[in-house]
């Protein structure tokens, strides 16, 4: 808490100095939110409140060879009921004659995919639990250093080192760091991207379902190779695949590799519909072929296939209507989000979202959850949000 206050004070006192060489922007979304949730006794009830998030960005300007950005996000409330301040980005990029260097906390987009991206071996974009109300769905950042070296106009090679999670001393063990390399190029009409990421510490618990007995394991060091292709066959298409291989000499290597082998693919097409309107379609899917293909109580989140369809209708220059859904076809459950945005004034939009979960209590998505985690769960089946976004 003290650290948070100090961070805020530091930012406030730094503002006058930052103004001279920076552009400052504030991006804010505020919603009237109605949700079906649970009380302390786990009884369902309808709740109402103002929720939202804000981001303050300090971007550098003036130097053509150096770019920097400091972004703090404030989300309110989270499941604890208090606003949460996060240092979302803090990076410096520098452009040298033959290469580019990035140091700090930021995001790195490996692979292709809007919701499901098997190529995203750094942050992971395979989970079905995604908030579909944002314009960007995967926004996680990490502390990293990258060197980007161009190999011609449409190819490059990129080296990466990620810092370990901070410990009480303020730094992590060097053995817990991550490192990776990717190659991005184009062959004919197809983009080919391939890479490898080594993660020295990973706190994911792996549910080993390939073995006869289910085991939950936490594995520290992991190798993650991936490949990502993209092209056009009328619609734009993309295909990614990756696998996680534990860096240990053990009989469970094969099991882990099979459980984590995943393929994601997608199609995107946009077409004009009548005068000044456009309709876009996106269909993505992720398949983990060695996970569970039959419906099984308690297996929510471990099924072998998920599908993400999206239809978006843009009416004229200012109105956007969308339907997005994450479908778990194996347990016949889905999360469906309808969205509305109207860009009324410069930098100002009216927004509305409805999210409905369809499924039984034990399914990946459910209207009435069988097990309610009061620390993390907020929405039990449905949420309605109507609000505004502004950038200034």
């Amino acid at each position: 808490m003290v650290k948070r206050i100090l961070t805020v004070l530091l930012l406030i006192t730094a503002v006058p100095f930052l103004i001279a060489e920076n552009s400052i922007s504030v991006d804010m979304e505020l919603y009237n939110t109605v949700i079906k949730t649970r009380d302390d006794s786990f009884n369902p009830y309808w709740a109402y409140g103002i929720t939202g998030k804000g981001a303050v960005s300090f971007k550098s300007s003036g130097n053509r060879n150096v770019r920097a950005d400091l972004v703090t996000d404030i989300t309110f409330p989270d499941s604890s009921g208090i606003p949460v301040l996060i240092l979302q980005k803090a990076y410096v990029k520098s452009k040298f004659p033959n290469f580019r260097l990035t140091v700090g906390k930021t995001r790195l987009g490996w692979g292709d995919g809007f919701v499901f991206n098997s190529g995203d071996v750094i942050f992971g974009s395979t989970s079905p639990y995604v908030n579909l109300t944002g314009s960007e769905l995967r926004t996680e950042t990490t502390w990293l250093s990258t060197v980007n070296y161009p190999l011609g106009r449409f190819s490059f090679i990129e080296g990466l080192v990620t810092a370990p999670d901070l410990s009480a001393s303020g730094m992590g063990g060097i053995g817990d760091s991550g490192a990776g390399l990717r190659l991005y190029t184009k062959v004919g009409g197809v983009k080919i991207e391939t890479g490898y990421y080594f993660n020295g510490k990973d706190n994911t618990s792996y549910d080993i379902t390939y073995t006869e007995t289910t085991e939950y394991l936490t594995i520290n060091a992991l190798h993650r190779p991936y490949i990502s292709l993209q092209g056009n066959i009328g619609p734009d298409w993309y295909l990614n695949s990756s696998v996680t291989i534990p860096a240990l000499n053990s009989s469970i290597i094969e099991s882990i590799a099979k459980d984590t082998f995943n393929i994601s693919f997608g199609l995107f097409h946009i077409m004009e519909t009548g005068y000044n309107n456009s309709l876009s379609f996106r269909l993505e899917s992720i398949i983990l072929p060695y996970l569970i293909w039959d419906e099984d109580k308690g297996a929510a989140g471990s099924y072998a296939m998920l599908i993400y369809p999206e239809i978006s209708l843009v009416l004229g220059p200012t109105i956007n209507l969308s339907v997005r859904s994450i479908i778990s076809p194996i347990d016949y459950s889905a999360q469906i989000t309808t969205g509305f945005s109207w860009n009324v004034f410069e930098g100002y939009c009216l927004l509305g979202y409805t999210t409905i979960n369809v499924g039984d209590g034990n399914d990946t998505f459910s209207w009435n959850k069988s097990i309610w985690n009061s620390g993390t769960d907020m929405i039990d089946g449905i949420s309605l949000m109507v609000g505004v976004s502004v950038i200034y």
Partner: protein
Amino acid sequence: MKNKTISILLLLFLLIPVAAFTITGEEIIRKADDMQVFDTSEASGEMRIKDRFGIKVSTFNAWSRGKYESLLEFTSLAERGQKILRTEDELYLFYPDAEELIRMQGSMLRQSMLGSDISYEDMTGGKDRISQYDVVLEGEENINGNDCYVLIMTAKVRTVPYPKEKVWIDKKTFIIWKAEYYTKSDRLLKEMETLRVEEIGGRMIAMESRISDKMKTDTETIMIINKIRINTPLDVDFSLDDLSW
């Protein structure tokens, strides 16, 4: 027989100068398109989208090389840092918040840019209207003191945004002073007017133009070029490195 031969020769003599100096619709369009293509260009400008709720302004920097290569960077607050790299048949987008390169092809090129009346293709050049339209030279008219050819362009393919266009092209400079965009059933959808031109580096360049939506009242897009340099060396190479910087 002799009289007949003389008559034919006389007719040919009269026709030769006409044929030699007659310009076709295709040639006019080709020259007008060529006027919009530079070896290189570097520009900054703004797009003002007006509707009944007010004006939304997007500012940008743009670079181009030849007919197909261009790079566009938005500098206005809401879109700051978003970039579009256009090659002959591809479009790359860069979103700085996501640090993500997105490669797109096909239909995306024809979509409206930032909700304006201008498509990515319009903005980033690379048009080849001769292969897309049948062109008929309909006549001549004077637009705001400028003698113009009047041409009717009818789409040969379905991949163009408007099935029919009527354009007024300056007879001397080949600047497009006015254009009207129609449906197949001749319903007027949009109108473009060039409001201001400047001679830069020996070329006439449209510095300000207005696109009005004829289906709605009080909506228009004003495109303004504030600064432009043409045919000078660039420090961008239209590469992914330039896009993601």
